[in-house]
């Protein structure tokens, strides 16, 4: 983990990038031209009040919603559009989405499937993996997140923290190049938060490229390569955690940090 911070910035290869991102819902402009980049092995932590646009950026990065203007660039290639910059069809979007892992605030495990089936479904459908191979990979991944003994339970039989760890395994098993976390611990009881954060921290230590929208300040300090603040649809400030928390440059950042502590 510490190696990535000592690596000179310029040599870090960009995995996912958005440029000049705009999004409006009704007459509410949620994103007002955001530029944001995450490089290989980096953990970008995104902070901000609710409604600041941080979750919307994540959804647009994951190609879950159409953007109004701007670009999403994945491994050097614009995604979500064809050669003529027209939005591509759902089937093509589906293929591109499977390269980007997404974890939701409310877990969204498939309630009609067991833990094992939750983790094998997309492997079977999008990776065309065989049943035995998919199961083996799922079992291995579930073991990594500490749920190896719950393979045949249904989501309703698990705690929130367990469900979220299954959701992480479900995304990881597709071998994504980047993992996006949308407030992964906000819906959890306080005593379950640490189990999920521990899995994420391990993931970061293993070198996974991550964007984490969260309110967990200690996680941001400990794990973040950079910490960014969103406010009213713009990226206000971005800096390594030490700098961000001790010497923020922007008044809005100081204001935000005052209200947290």
């Amino acid at each position, binding site marked *: 983990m510490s190696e990535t911070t000592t690596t000179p910035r310029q040599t870090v290869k960009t995995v996912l990038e958005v440029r000049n991102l705009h999004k409006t819902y009704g007459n509410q402009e949620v994103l007002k031209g955001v530029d944001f980049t995450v490089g290989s092995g980096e953990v970008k932590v995104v902070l901000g009040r609710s409604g600041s646009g941080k979750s919307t950026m994540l959804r647009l990065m*994951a190609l*879950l919603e159409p953007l109004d203007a701007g670009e999403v660039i994945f491994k050097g290639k614009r995604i979500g559009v064809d050669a003529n910059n027209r939005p591509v069809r*759902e*089937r093509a979007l*589906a*293929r*591109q*989405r*499977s*390269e*980007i*892992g*997404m974890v*939701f605030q*409310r877990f*969204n*495990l*498939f*309630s*009609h499937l*067991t833990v094992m089936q939750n983790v094998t*479904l*997309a492997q079977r*459908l*999008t990776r065309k993996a065989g049943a035995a191979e998919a199961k083996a990979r799922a079992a291995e991944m579930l073991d990594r997140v500490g749920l190896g003994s719950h393979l*045949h*339970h*249904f989501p*309703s*039989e*698990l*705690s929130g923290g367990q469900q979220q760890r299954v*959701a992480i395994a*479900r*995304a990881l098993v*597709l071998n994504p190049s980047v993992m996006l976390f949308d407030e992964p611990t906000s819906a959890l*009881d306080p*005593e*379950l938060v640490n189990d999920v954060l521990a899995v994420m921290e391990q993931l970061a230590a293993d070198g996974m490229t991550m964007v984490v929208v969260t309110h967990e300040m200690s996680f941001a300090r400990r794990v973040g390569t950079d910490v960014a603040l969103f406010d009213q649809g713009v990226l206000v400030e971005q800096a390594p955690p030490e700098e961000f928390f001790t010497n923020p440059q922007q008044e809005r950042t100081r204001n935000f940090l005052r209200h947290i502590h």
Partner: protein
Amino acid sequence: MDFDQSIFLQALTSKEFLSGAVLSLELAAVSQVAATLIGLFVALAGISKSKTLRSLAWAYVWFFRSVPTLLLLLIVWNAAPQIIPALRDNWYSPFLAGFVGLSVVEGAFMAEILRSALLSVDSGQKLAARALGLTPAQTFLRVELPQAIKVALPPTGNEFIGMIKYTSLASVISLQELMTTAQVQVATTFRYAEFYTAALVYYLVIVSAVMVLQHQVEKRYRWVSLPAKTRPRVERVPATLKGL
């Protein structure tokens, strides 16, 4: 006139009643299957983005919920062949006419059941499926539909029981189902009580069997790994509250 048990028992065990009951059940089953498929397409049209499709779905539900089933059966069996010569041939049987009439009417009711069932599926389920790279068809068939079916099962069982009873309306189009069988026997013997009771018993048995079947299917859609008694409790009690 007393209730003659031997006539009742004879009717109950007669070939006519048995084949009438089988015909009723067959008609109900194929009509319900067709109605469910019609209902699924109408429901999908009803929640689609296209305004035209939504209008068509609305019109279908409006029309076929409004028209009395008995009237529609008479139209399908008596009026349609007058307008469409092709329907005057032998292949156009009372069973087929009954099937068409019952399924298009029931399709309107199933459309409403399935529409509400599809809308009840948590939007996060679809979002997660899309994020994992499932195509729209895969998302619908592998994630949304199974969850909608769970919601639709109890009202659909209800509808199927209703359908079994509605097949008795096909007696007006000379289909030899259970009700017609009873009517024919009554017309020649005037033993109302015995034959009607025999028909009643058949309906009770059929509906009871359907209820058992429905219970079994619903059990499969409970989505728990263990019987309730042995299932571990997932709700955690904070240590500070224990012993209160």
